[in-house]
Every structure is written in structure tokens, then in C-alpha cells.
């Protein structure tokens, strides 16, 4: 069967959806330890919610400091504040977005 362009080629272009795997952190909260959470922490660092510690790589542990970052993220983006990676939060994290950081020291709010 011949499918009209572009549905044949384009509708499955999700193979490189950068943050799709973050769904596995759903319901993670303080005390959680999930393999790969360091990548989620790098996401938070990238967009200005988690300060990078010099000469220290993020761990997979959901510690107090990360919880504070999650709360900050939820407050900043108008999400319910739970301190956990709940469904609203993980959905927002996975959403496509602008690459400019939200909460860098280079931003002043009004």
C-alpha cells in the first residue's frame, strides 16, 4: 500500500527523543536510588536548578540537595510542589523546550 508523503517517513521520528528515558524516574523522591539519575541531575544543572559541584560527578542518589532543586523547578514552572518526580513533573521534564537556562545566575526575575 502506498502511503502519502510524509506519513511514511516522518511519523516515527521519535527514536532520538532526548529525554524520553526520564520516564523511569516517575515517583522517585528523597531516598530513592535509581540507575541513571545522574543524567536527570545533569538536566537540572543544565537548566539552572542544580549547582555543579567542581570535580564531582552527580550520583544516582535522590538526596536533599536534589529534592530542593526539584522543588525549585516545580515552583518556577508552575507545577504542583511535591519535591518528587511526579507525573506532572516528569511530563514537564520530558517536554521539548528552549535550550536557554531558566534559573541561571544570569537571570533576574520580576
Amino acid at each position, binding site marked *: 500500500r502506498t502511503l502519502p508523503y*510524509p*506519513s511514511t517517513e*516522518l*511519523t516515527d*521520528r*521519535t*527514536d*532520538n*527523543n*532526548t*529525554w524520553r528515558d526520564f520516564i523511569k524516574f516517575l515517583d522517585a523522591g528523597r531516598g530513592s536510588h535509581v540507575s541513571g539519575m545522574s543524567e536527570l541531575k545533569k538536566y537540572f544543572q543544565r*537548566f539552572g536548578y542544580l549547582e555543579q559541584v567542581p570535580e564531582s560527578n552527580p550520583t544516582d542518589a535522590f538526596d536533599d540537595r536534589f529534592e530542593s532543586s526539584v522543588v525549585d523547578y516545580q*515552583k*518556577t*514552572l*508552575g507545577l504542583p510542589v511535591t519535591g518528587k518526580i511526579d507525573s506532572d513533573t516528569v511530563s*514537564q521534564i520530558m*517536554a*521539548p*523546550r*528552549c*535550550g*536557554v537556562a*531558566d534559573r*541561571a*545566575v*544570569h*537571570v*533576574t*526575575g*520580576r
Partner: protein
Amino acid sequence: YAYFYGEPRWARSSPMTLTYALSPGYSIDYIAQSDIESAFDRAFSRWSAVIPVNFTAAEDYWKADIKIGFFSGDHGDGEPFDGVLGVLAHAFSPENGRFHLDAAERWAVDFASEKSRVAVDLESVATHEIGHVLGLAHTPVKEAVMYPSLRPRTKKVDLKIDDVKGVQALYGSNPNFKFSSLLQSDTSSSFG
């Protein structure tokens, strides 16, 4: 609304005119160039309607104040793109003028003809990034153009009060602008 540190803005004599150009070498080939240009024209017009700044297309890309291009992966500015979805685009604060879109996205100017479920509305992203070019940072107001995320197959092109107040605090108001002209609701989805 929010600003970058130091509240940078373009400083030109009034009436201010900024020129923009699309990179001749870093573009996409599945949308007509005229349609791409029209999307950017509309995006710039939305901002110029509220502030006393005119945007005009430049003949020479390298002489333009705002240089727009579609780039893939590591493109030399320290902020590599990441493939389909993820980061869609980024732009630099005044008076840098660099405005980069991720060439890996499936950009769309018309969801009726573009069927990809990961299609991203070019005009919406353009409008957002122009806000950065002008000096606005991300806002926590979900409905505003300057909110940081945009779902595929979604349009968000009309400026909200938060966007307008933010940019007018930097540049002043276009004398022809009236707040009453802002639409009540101006986001839509074509997923259905």
C-alpha cells in the same frame, strides 16, 4: 517575566531598526524558503507591534544584527543540539544576535500538511527565541510565549500580557499598541 543578568537590551538610536537574515548555508530543504521567511516575518511583526522597534530583512547575512540558522549537533557555540525533540532552539541575549534552531527537528509551518507527530511549529519557536534576542529570559507564566517548553504540534504565537510587559519595560511601548488588542486565548493544538 524575567531578564538576563544585567538586563541587556539593544541600544540604538530611535526609531530603532534591527536587521535579520536567514543563513544561506544552514537551512532546511523540506519547507519552501518563502514559507520559512513568512513565518519569521510574522514572528518579528508580533514583537514590533508592541515595542518601538522595527525589524527588516537584511540582504547580507553577515551584516545582519540577528543571524538565524538551522544547525545540527555541535555547531560551535558550546551548546550542541541533541536530535529530535529535547532542545528545539536557543538564542543569545542582546546584542549578540545569534539565533539557532535544531535542524534535526521536523519543523512545520502548517500542521494540515505536515503529519509528523513530532512536528514543531516554526513560528512559535521563532517568536519565543526573538524574545531572548530582545532580552527576555524564561517566564513561569505557562500561557506566555516566553515559557520554556512547547509540545509538538502546538502553536503558541500570540504575545501575552506577561510577554508584552516584559519587553516594554526594556524598550517602551509602540505608540500604536493597545493592551485591549491582546487576545483572550491564543494557544491551540492540532493533535486532534
